């Protein structure tokens, strides 16, 4: 990808059609899987499975449809910054809520 970025005499990098077809096929299959998994009783794993599939689908969109895979390292930083911030938001918010002794949060959910 960086080799392409340095060499900008050839015009835009055109991603082969088979990549787009593979990504769209994966997205449809993963949607079907996530719906099916939603009806299965996986105990505490239902939410993590649904989120893992969603994160995988989002990664496919970001890397291939949004061309981040083929972009410069600078663009990786810009694209990654927002998602990294999201991790901070969730980690710090939830460590606060689930660790509050005076609230009933967290415990019922974790047992569920």
């Amino acid at each position: 990808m960086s080799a392409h970025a340095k060499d900008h005499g050839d015009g835009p990098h055109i991603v082969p059609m088979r990549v787009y077809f593979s990504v769209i096929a994966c997205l449809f299959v993963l949607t079907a899987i996530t719906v099916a998994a939603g009806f299965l009783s996986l105990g505490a794993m239902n939410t993590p499975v649904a989120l893992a599939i969603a994160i995988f689908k989002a990664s496919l969109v970001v890397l291939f449809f949004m061309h981040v895979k083929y972009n410069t390292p600078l663009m990786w930083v810009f694209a990654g910054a927002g998602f990294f911030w999201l991790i901070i938001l969730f980690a710090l918010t939830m460590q606060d809520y689930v660790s509050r002794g005076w609230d009933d949060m967290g415990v019922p959910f974790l047992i569920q």
Partner: protein
Amino acid sequence: MSSDASHPALRHYYDDMHQQHESATMGMWAFLAQEIMFFGGLFAGYTVYRFKYFNAFVTGSNLLPIEWGGLNTAILIASSFTVAMAVRCAQQGLHKAIFNWFLATMVLGLAFLGVKSIEYSHKYHDHLIPGLNFTWDGPMAGPMKIFFSFYFVMTGMHALHMIIGIGLMIWLMPKIRAGKFGPEYYSPIENFGLYWHFVDIVWIFLFPLLYLIGRHLQ
């Protein structure tokens, strides 16, 4: 691209079209980071209240029609593909094809909004719209109201983004017709694509979190 310096779309403060394109892409990602923060706040709020009112969120989730939600997921994924095709055609300078892929994207976007409006009208009919006609006779009336508030704010902000996206396409389509975009200059098409893909990603998370989670518990 040595002839770039004379491209009509080149702004005077850039050296060449490549530098201009890279700056445009970077700026778009900075905008999308802001969008992640905007939707991130909504998702964080949803998470906190889901932990707190777990049972109400399960009950609420099961009141959402999974077939409409699933259909909309498929429509939106397909529209991400059509917009990716539009960008690819712009990179190759296929003006007619960019226009047609935009048209397909617009049709899919409108189909999504059509399904969404059917769902909203059912919610109106069932008196489940907080602030408008919310009535819940069973237990957990307060937490149920919170769930549907999150549902309407999150899907509503998402739908607003789609309406803006359709507006952007209407704005871009005459320019596509006029042949303004090609391999040297396609930043507006690519940045629109980034915007549309982002809106798709938001839905990729909204669908399981609103429609699916708790489905196995009912």
